[in-house]
C-alpha cells in the first residue's frame, strides 16, 4: 500500500514537472531538451511550467496532490493516517483537475453560469497530453492505494487500483458517451428539453404493433428484433455447443480444421457474408437458378427478411458462442462425469444430468452474447433485412437517414439497452447463485468421456451441414476476388489484387495499402489492451465484493449492447471537446475498439474464472503474495485459453468492425473495413473482396501465431482414469 502510494506520487510529480500537459504539436516524443525551453513554452510546457510562466493557477493540483502523496508515503505515519492522506491527495487532486478541465475549454468558459459568475476569461485550454494523462492516471493509483489502506479490497493496493482504474475507465469511455447520448431521447427534434417527446417516441405503434399476427403486413420493430435475437441466440448457442463438444470430445480426426473453419466467419469483414448468401440463395443466386433450370421452381426472394437474416447471423455469431464454450468445455473436470458414471448413470444420462448442467454458465454466457450481438448487428440487417426492420437499422437510419432524428435514435437505443438489461438480469438469475467450480486446488484427474452416440451424431450432422455451407459460401465469395465481375462475368483475373496491393519501386501504390496497414496497427494496439482489461475485470468481478460491482459489470456491457453507429456518434460527441479531445486521432478508435470489445473478453474470462477455485487465490495471499502475485502467477496461467480467446476476439473485432468507427475515421486513420464498405457501396466487389481476402489471411496468420505463443493450459490431467474425487469445495465456503 505504502509503496504503491510512493511510486504513484513520484510518477505523478515527475509527469507534472516534466511532461507536456497539453497535446503537443510536433508529435509525442519531440521535445527540445537542448535549452530547457520546453519547460516554459506555452504549448509544450508541463504543469509546473504553465503555472509559473503562464499564470495557470488552476493547474496547481497537478503538482500539489503528488507532493502531498509523496510526503504521506515518506514521513513515518500510522497506517490509517497515511491512507487518509493518500485518499485525500488522489481523490481531491483528481476531482479538481477534472473540474478545471471541464470548466475552461478552447473558447474560454465551457459552462454558462461560470461565465456569468466570473465574466469572460482569456484562458484557453486544449486537450490534455501526456502530462495530463499520466498525472491523472497516477493520481488514480494513489487514490486506490489510500482505499486499500483503509482496508478495502482486502487491503491490497493492486486490487484496489484495478477496481478504481476500471471504474474510471468504464465511466469515462462507456457510461459517459452513452448516457450523454441517451439524454438525447428527452430532447425534441430541435434540441430542446422535452420529456414528453420521449414518451411519444417510446409508445410509437411502429415499435410495438402486433399487427402481423392479425394479418397486417408488419409487426413492431421491437418484436422483430426480439424474435430474431432469441432465434439467433438459441441457434448460435446450440451450434457453438455442438462444435465445442465435437472438437474436445468428438474423437474426431478433423477437429483442427473444423476449429479453423469456425474462426472463418469471425475474421470476415462485414457485408461479405451477406453478399455471399445473396449470391447463393438470392433470386438470381446459384441455388435459385439451379432450382429454376432443373425443376422449374421459382424460389423467389425468401432470403430477404427473417430467414436470410437469421441464416447470416447464425453464420456470423456461432463462432463467438464456440469461443466462449470451448473454454468451458475444456475446463470441465472429467472426474465429475466419471463420478456420475460410477453412480450407474450411462453416457447419455451423465451428459444430460452432469455435463450439460455444468456447462450452464458457459451456455448462459454464450446465449447472452448471441442475443446482444444479434440485436446490435447492423451489417447483415442492412443487406438482408428487406422489409423486416430491426432496431439496429432503425437507429442507424434515424441517425444518418433522410429524417436525421437524433432523439428517435436515442429512444430506440434506450429500448435496445433495456432489452439487454433484461437478458443480462435473467442470465444472472439463472447462473449467479450456483457454483461451478471445476478446477479446484486438489489435483484432479480423469479422462473426458466420449460423447453419447446420439449426441455425437447430432453434433456431426449439424456441424457437417454448417461446415459444407461455410466452405461453399467462402469458396464462392473468394472467387469474387479472382474474377472480372462477381456474380456476372467469371473470367479469371488478378487485376483486383494489383489495383489494391501493387508495389511500385518500393512504394505502396495500391489503393488498399494505407487502410490495411492502419487497421493492422490499431488492431494490434487495441487487442492486448482489451484482453488485459477484460481479464483484469473478470478477475476483479469474480474474486472481490465491493459496492457497485453489479452496476460496473453492467456498464461494461453497455457499449456492446448499443449498435456501433450509436457508439460512433456518441464517442464523437463526447470526445470532441477538451480535456479529452480524442476525436480525429487514432486514440479514439483504439478506445472505441477496447471498450466495445471489452465485454467479450470479460464474459469469457468470467466463465473461465468460475471454474477456478477461489482458494487458489487465497493460498497465494496467505503465502505472502499480494493481489498482483495472485493474479499474475496463479490466475493468469490458468486463464490462458480465456486470454487467447480475448486476444483473438478483440484483435479480430478491431479488424472487422465498421459501423462503430465509420464516424471516427479520418483520412489518416482510415480503416480497411471502411474502405471495403465504400467499395461495396460503389459496386466494386472485386476490390472489396481482394482486400477482404488479404485481411482474412493476415488475421489467420496472426491468430495462428498467437495460439502458438500463448500455448495451452498445463494442468496435467492424467491419461488414465483413477479414483473418483470428492466433490470440489465451494470457493470461500463458510464452515
Amino acid at each position: 500500500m505504502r509503496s504503491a502510494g510512493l511510486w504513484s506520487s513520484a510518477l505523478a510529480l515527475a509527469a507534472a514537472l516534466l511532461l507536456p500537459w497539453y497535446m503537443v504539436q510536433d508529435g509525442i516524443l519531440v521535445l527540445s531538451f537542448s535549452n530547457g525551453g520546453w519547460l516554459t513554452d506555452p504549448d509544450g510546457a508541463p504543469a509546473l511550467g504553465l503555472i509559473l510562466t503562464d499564470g495557470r493557477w488552476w493547474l496547481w493540483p497537478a503538482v500539489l496532490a503528488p507532493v502531498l502523496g509523496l510526503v504521506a508515503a515518506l514521513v513515518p505515519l500510522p497506517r490509517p493516517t497515511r491512507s487518509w492522506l493518500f485518499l485525500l491527495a488522489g481523490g481531491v487532486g483528481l476531482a479538481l483537475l477534472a473540474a478545471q478541465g471541464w470548466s475552461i475549454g478552447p473558447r474560454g468558459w465551457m459552462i454558462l453560469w461560470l461565465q456569468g459568475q466570473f465574466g469572460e476569461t482569456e484562458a484557453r485550454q486544449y486537450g490534455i497530453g501526456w502530462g495530463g494523462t499520466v498525472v491523472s492516471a497516477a493520481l488514480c493509483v494513489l487514490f486506490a492505494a489510500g482505499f486499500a489502506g483503509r482496508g478495502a479490497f482486502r487491503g491490497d493496493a493492486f486490487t484496489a487500483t484495478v477496481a478504481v482504474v476500471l471504474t474510471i475507465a468504464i465511466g469515462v469511455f462507456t457510461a459517459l458517451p452513452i448516457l450523454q447520448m441517451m439524454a438525447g431521447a428527452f430532447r425534441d427534434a430541435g434540441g430542446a428539453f422535452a420529456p414528453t417527446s420521449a414518451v411519444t417516441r417510446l409508445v410509437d405503434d411502429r415499435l410495438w404493433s402486433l399487427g402481423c399476427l392479425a394479418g397486417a403486413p408488419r409487426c413492431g420493430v421491437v418484436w422483430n428484433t426480439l424474435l430474431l435475437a432469441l432465434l439467433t441466440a438459441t441457434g448460435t448457442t446450440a451450434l457453438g455447443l455442438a462444435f465445442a463438444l465435437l472438437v474436445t470430445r468428438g474423437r474426431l480426426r478433423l477437429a483442427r480444421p473444423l476449429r479453423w473453419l469456425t474462426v472463418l466467419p469471425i475474421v470476415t469483414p462485414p457485408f461479405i457474408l451477406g453478399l455471399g448468401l445473396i449470391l447463393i440463395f438470392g433470386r438470381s443466386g446459384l441455388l435459385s437458378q439451379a432450382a429454376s433450370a432443373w425443376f422449374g421452381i421459382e424460389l423467389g426472394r425468401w432470403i430477404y427478411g427473417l430467414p436470410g437474416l437469421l441464416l447470416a447471423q447464425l453464420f456470423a455469431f456461432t463462432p463467438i458462442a464456440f469461443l466462449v464454450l470451448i473454454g468451458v468445455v475444456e475446463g470441465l473436470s472429467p472426474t465429475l462425469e466419471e463420478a456420475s458414471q460410477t453412480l450407474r448413470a450411462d453416457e447419455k444420462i451423465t451428459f444430460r444430468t452432469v455435463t450439460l448442467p455444468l456447462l450452464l454458465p458457459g451456455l448462459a454466457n454464450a446465449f447472452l452474447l448471441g442475443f446482444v450481438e444479434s440485436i446490435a448487428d447492423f451489417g447483415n440487417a442492412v443487406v438482408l433485412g428487406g422489409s423486416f426492420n430491426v432496431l439496429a437499422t432503425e437507429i442507424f437510419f434515424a441517425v444518418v437517414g433522410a429524417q436525421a432524428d437524433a432523439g428517435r435514435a436515442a429512444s430506440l437505443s434506450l429500448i435496445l439497452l433495456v432489452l439487454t438489461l433484461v437478458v443480462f438480469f435473467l442470465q444472472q438469475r439463472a447462473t449467479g447463485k450456483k457454483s461451478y467450480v471445476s478446477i479446484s486446488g486438489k489435483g484432479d484427474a480423469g479422462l473426458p468421456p466420449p460423447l453419447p452416440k446420439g449426441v455425437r451424431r447430432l453434433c456431426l450432422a449439424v456441424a457437417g451441414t454448417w461446415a459444407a455451407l461455410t466452405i461453399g459460401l467462402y469458396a464462392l465469395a473468394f472467387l469474387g476476388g479472382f474474377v472480372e465481375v462477381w456474380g456476372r462475368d467469371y473470367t479469371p483475373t488478378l487485376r483486383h489484387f494489383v489495383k489494391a496491393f501493387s508495389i511500385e519501386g518500393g512504394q505502396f501504390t495500391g489503393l488498399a495499402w494505407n487502410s490495411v496497414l492502419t487497421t493492422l496497427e490499431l488492431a494490434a494496439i487495441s487487442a492486448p489492451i482489451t484482453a488485459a482489461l477484460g481479464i483484469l475485470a473478470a478477475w476483479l468481478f469474480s474474486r472481490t465484493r465491493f459496492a457497485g460491482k453489479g452496476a460496473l459489470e453492467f456498464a461494461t456491457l453497455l457499449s456492446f449492447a448499443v449498435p456501433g453507429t450509436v457508439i460512433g456518434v456518441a464517442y464523437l460527441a463526447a470526445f470532441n471537446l477538451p480535456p479529452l479531445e480524442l476525436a480525429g486521432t487514432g486514440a479514439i478508435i483504439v478506445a472505441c475498439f477496447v471498450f466495445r470489445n471489452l465485454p467479450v473478453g470479460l464474459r469469457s474470462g468470467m466463465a473461465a474464472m468460475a471454474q477456478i477455485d477461489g482458494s487458489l487465490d487465497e493460498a497465494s495471499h496467505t503465502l505472502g503474495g499480494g493481489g498482483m502475485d495472485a493474479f499474475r502467477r496463479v490466475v493468469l496461467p490458468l486463464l490462458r485459453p480465456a486470454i487467447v480467446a480475448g486476444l483473438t476476439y478483440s484483435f479480430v473485432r478491431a479488424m472487422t468492425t465498421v459501423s462503430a468507427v465509420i464516424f471516427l475515421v479520418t483520412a489518416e486513420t482510415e480503416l480497411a473495413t471502411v474502405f471495403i464498405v465504400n467499395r461495396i457501396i460503389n459496386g466494386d466487389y472485386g476490390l472489396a473482396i481482394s482486400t477482404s481476402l488479404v485481411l482474412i489471411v493476415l488475421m489467420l496468420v496472426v491468430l495462428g501465431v498467437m495460439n502458438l505463443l500463448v500455448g495451452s493450459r498445463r494442468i496435467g490431467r492424467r491419461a488414465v482414469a483413477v479414483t473418483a474425487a470428492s466433490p470440489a469445495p465451494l470457493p470461500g465456503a463458510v464452515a
Partner: protein
Amino acid sequence: MSRRHLFAFAATVAATFTLGALPAAAQGSLNVYCSAQVEWCQAAANAFQKETGIRVNMSQKGSGEVLAQIRAEAQNPRGDLWFGGTGDPHLQAAEDKLTAEYRSPMLDQLHDWARRQAEQSQFRTVGIYAGAMGFGYNPELLARRNIAPPACWKDLLDARFRNEIQMANPQSSGTAYVMIATIVQLMGEEPAFEFLRGMHRNVNAYPRSGTGPIKAVARGETGVSISFVHDAVTERLGGFPVQYVVPCEGTGYEIGSMSIIAGSRNERNARRFYDWALTPAAQQLGAETKQFQTPSNRSTPVPAEAPQMSQIRLIDYDFARYGSSAERRRLIERWDREVNSLPR
C-alpha cells in the same frame, strides 16, 4: 485564436499514436468530407493539392453520415468542407446553420438550377452537379419473364410489374424522398399518394439505402428500380446488365452540392477549394472517374455516356419547399402511414 486552433488540430493529428509526427505543409491543410464516389473524391483531392500545394485530407462518407458527423462535431468542428452528395442533407445543414455562408465569384458561370439552390440556402451551399431521377431495369431478367420495360410513371401501376419494383425507403433514403417529392410536384399531392398506393402492390421491397434498388437490379434480384439514372450508368460500366429510362411525364432531379462547414479551422483554404471545384477543369474530373452526373458549370463539357439533361423533361423542382425539414417530415410520415403500412 486561429493560430491556436491550427495548433490544436495539428496536435490532434500528431498525437495519433500510429502515425507519429506529421508536420503540416507550408500551405496549410484542408479537411474534406466527400460524399461523391471515392475515385472522384481522390482525384479532386490530388488535383487540388497539385495545383495549390495545400494538403488535402479526404474522408469519404455517405451524405447522411457526414451530416450526422457535422452535427456531432458542431461545438468543435474538425472538417472544413463538404464536397458532393445529394442536395437535401446540404440544405438541412444550411437550415441548421451548420454550414457557413459564402458567395463564390464563380456563381455567375453556373447553370440556373445550381445558382438558384445557392440563393435558396442563403449561399450556404451550391450545386456542383445534377442527376435526374428515372427507372433502372434488368433487360435480361425482364426478357426472361416477357415483361416490357417501363417508360412512364403510370406504367409502374401495371400488373405486369407485380413484385418486380424496388424503391428505397424514404425514411432513410434521400433518393426515395426525391422520388416522392417529384411525383407530388408532378401530379399534386392527393393523386401522388393515390399513385404511390397503387405502385405499392408492385413493390417487393423498400431497401434502406438509395443505391440498394439499382444494385438489386444489377444482380437480378428485382426487375425494375426507381433510381438516379447516373447510378444506372455506373452499374452498367461495372459489367452488369442494366438499362435506364427517364419517365415520359417528366422527372425530378437531385443537385449534388458543396458546403463550407461553419467554424472551419481552414476557412481560407476551404474557400479556395470551393471556387476551384466550380471551375470546368475541376468538374471534368467527375467524368474522368466515370461519374456521369451533369456538371453545374455551363462551360464544362458533358461526356457522351452521361444522360443528357437537355433531353430530359425536368420538372421545376422547388428545392426551397421540398428541401425544408418540416415538409420532408410531413410527406415521409404520410407515406409511412398511408402507403407503407398497407398490405400488398
